[in-house]
């Protein structure tokens, strides 16, 4: 059991270190800007699409009208962490919910 414990511990430490390096290194400012041609063909999902896909992973997609804009901001932060959503997903879903309520 001690060996497995050490393996898990080392594995987790490597994961944490790697994640910190990647997440701290990948700031938006350092991205190479996409060219106009790339932007033209870039496919981005809408907030409404993500709302339908992401929320349904655990529960039925919520009705935007059930909360006001301020409430959706609080709920979005809570759900981002609880369901481990990407920033892009939660920002788009929050924008959609606030626009449709």
């Amino acid at each position: 059991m001690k060996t497995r414990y050490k393996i898990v511990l080392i594995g987790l430490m490597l994961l944490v270190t790697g994640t910190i390096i990647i997440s701290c290194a990948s700031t938006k400012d350092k991205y190479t800007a996409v060219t106009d041609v790339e932007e033209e063909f870039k496919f981005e999902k809408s907030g409404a699409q993500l709302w339908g896909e992401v929320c349904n992973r655990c529960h039925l997609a919520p009705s935007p009208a059930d909360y006001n804009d301020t409430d959706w901001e609080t709920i979005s932060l809570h759900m981002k962490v609880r369901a481990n959503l990407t920033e892009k997903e939660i920002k788009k879903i929050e924008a959609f919910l606030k626009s449709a309520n």
Partner: protein
Amino acid sequence: MKKLFTTIVVIGLVHISYGQTYNNFKIDSIVSQQYKPSKTQFMIRGYGHTGLNFTNTEGERESSYVGSAFAPIFLFKHSDRLMFEAELEFGLENNELEIGLEYADVMYVLNKNMTVRAGKFLLPFGTFMERLHPAWINRLPTRPLGFGHDGIAPASGIGVELRGAFDLGGSKLNYAVYSTNGPRLKDGTEEPEEAGMLMFQNFEDNNTSKAFGGRIGLLPFADSSTEIGFSTYSTSKVGAADSNYENVGAFLYAIDFAFIKQIPALGGFIDIKGQYNNSDIDDATYTEVHEDGDEEEYTFDNKSNSLYTQLSYRPTMASSDFMKKLEFVVRYSNLNTPEGAEWEEQSDQYAFGLNYWLTWRSVIKIAYQTTDSVGGHDGGGTTNNFFVHWAIGF
């Protein structure tokens, strides 16, 4: 009489016209300024459920309305990065009101890929206990075998956690790593029939060793329909410091799977979920005290596992509004605890449910469940249950 009537009419008209002039724009703007939302936000969310249970255990029948469980969630948003969250659980069990603190933690968003949490939080050991157990989310009135507060897998812990998600250009990867007090071993002193079990409610650590764990989830497709997760949880010591059991260690892992997608050919949403838990605790020697006072030492291979798979279908593309709100659910779960332990058990459970969604967060659940057990606290046998429950999220 005429004079009196005229006087009342005049007073009434004056009153109404005065009332009309009260709402002027100047005052309105002042009032609206006062109610401008602040950056600091406080919300109470949560869920509750109630229902009727019928139980038939080997011919012994029981029926009871089950108490309304109430689980308020408090959210304090201090800024766009900082939040405190806590959930209380009120439940009626064994003619008593039971109150629990499901979680209470503070979280801070470090950057777009990383959030730190500290306090008591739900553990990402698989997905069921962290994401799917609330009554308005769980598609059946019961939890699968081996899950829950007395299950073989951890539900929550006190410690610190890093978590986040990465967008991989279509695919997504989420992760969580944490350190908690870890479980404590039941050595049989207080409950001899549970010697060798892990107790995950370890509010004050009973030794210096901490538990470490984590989960990696991969969503390989851009539509987020599929998620595969692997979790691990390990500690080198679960026994009390300076006891014979101090150096007993434990290693647990879980594999989870989810597929949720609206399939036009099937006319609705298909939702498949599953999780396998495995627990391996170092062997130790426990003492059994017989009725005549004699003591006997025994040991066993302390390995347990549990599994559940669930399929549900919502005909959301049906033409009938009534049909759209229905959901059909079937679940299989299985629990195996160590052979030779006092709590040895092999159980299989099938559950079939029909749900009617009143709204996206309010559901009436009708379910039939049958459980075949060998061993266990109740000595085994077949138990059949019928449930009618109403769950609501708020």
